[in-house]
């Protein structure tokens, strides 16, 4: 069983310079209260791994605007002009990764695979400096697993063991990131008594979740 904790208390374990995965797709399915607490804490020099940097004032966009992030590993920054401005000013390192490669690199880190072997990115700027592998007459790009120290994930509902279920397109990277970080902090919209979530509906088993954030007050 897990006692739920406040976002402020949870983010105290995140040091300056940490590598953090954050769930969400354009701010949908992003743990907003954890991000607010992280911004308020002043923790900085972070490496953020996320699908995108959302919009200014929303989700990961708040961390970008606050200057908390040193490097971002992501697939898309097009809706956040602030990310582009900081990148062009040399204040933010941006590593662009194709979205499918990003999710598979995170998944491979989480499930013990040594690499992702894919055609995506072959012959493009993404392949620069990377190994190419020929298998059965076909060429592939080798992409390495992406790990993190922390994963901050959002869920629709948890129970007090820490099992999680998700809502519609708010799933996105969340269940994958829950596999790939040393410490997983889950921010559910609701927390229900153990036994209320049917086992079939559990998408992230409690064994992956270290900390449960209390419901919004």
């Amino acid at each position, binding site marked *: 069983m897990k006692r739920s904790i406040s976002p402020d208390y949870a983010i105290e374990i995140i040091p300056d310079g940490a590598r953090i995965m954050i769930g969400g797709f354009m701010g949908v399915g992003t743990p907003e209260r954890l991000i607010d607490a992280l911004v308020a804490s002043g923790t900085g020099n972070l490496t953020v791994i996320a699908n995108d940097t959302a919009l200014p004032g929303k989700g990961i966009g708040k961390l970008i605007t606050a200057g908390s992030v040193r490097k971002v590993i992501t697939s898309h920054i*097009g*809706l956040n002009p602030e990310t582009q401005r900081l990148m062009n000013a040399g204040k933010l390192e941006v590593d662009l990764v*194709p*979205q*499918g490669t990003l999710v598979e690199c995170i998944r491979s880190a989480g499930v013990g695979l040594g690499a992702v072997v894919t055609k*995506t990115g072959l012959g493009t700027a993404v392949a620069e400096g990377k190994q190419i592998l020929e298998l059965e007459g076909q060429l592939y790009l080798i992409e390495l697993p992406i790990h993190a120290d922390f994963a901050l994930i959002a869920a629709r509902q948890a129970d007090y063991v820490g099992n999680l279920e998700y809502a*519609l397109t708010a*799933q996105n990277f969340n269940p*994958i990131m829950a596999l790939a970080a040393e410490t997983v902090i889950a921010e559910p919209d609701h927390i229900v008594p153990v036994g209320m979530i049917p086992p079939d509906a559990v998408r992230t088993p409690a064994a992956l979740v270290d900390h449960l954030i209390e419901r919004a007050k």
Partner: protein
Amino acid sequence: MDAKDRIAQRVAQEIVPGSLVNLGIGLPSLVASYVATDQGVYFQSENGVIGLGSRPPEGMEDPDLTDAGGGFVTAVPGAAAIDSAMSFGLIRGGHIDLTVLGALQVDSAGHLANWMIPGMLTPGMGGAMDLATGAKRVIAALQHQTRGQSKIVNRCDLPITSTRQVDLIVTDLAVFDYCDAGLRLIELMPEIGLDEVGSKTQASFVVAL
């Protein structure tokens, strides 16, 4: 009807009943409105839904149901919500029958460029590289020219999205595919002449009207 809608309407004719289709953001997303709802076509969105529906009426949005651009959508009966690994497993594994992608340039080799303009704009590739590489069929849907410059070029000078050749190009002037001789003009859009296409296209092409 403006140029973008003419392109979208023409692309819609390529959509096979019962197929699974991914539409890129921007111009390609207009295609959905030209596909009849009784055709059994399901639209996939890479953020994790198969069975994307139209925009919800105001006041009836679900903040947890959006498209890849972050806009509110609905889901049709028979829809499925999936995580990003499943979503890109479908895309990279060849389970998407057709993707329609916007482009800044498409070239004689069938390479498209749609994710950055060095020194000017870096939106990032999002899912475009996976889609251009992994979908069964790829259609590039774009305006033929931008500021008087042809977007159909001999060789992309912008960073390409994939080395996989696109299958079809649909612009406001013409439709092209690829044959052994390279880029091939196969159709003129209504009220467009061959001379106009020739004069507004940088790439060389063969004609098979």
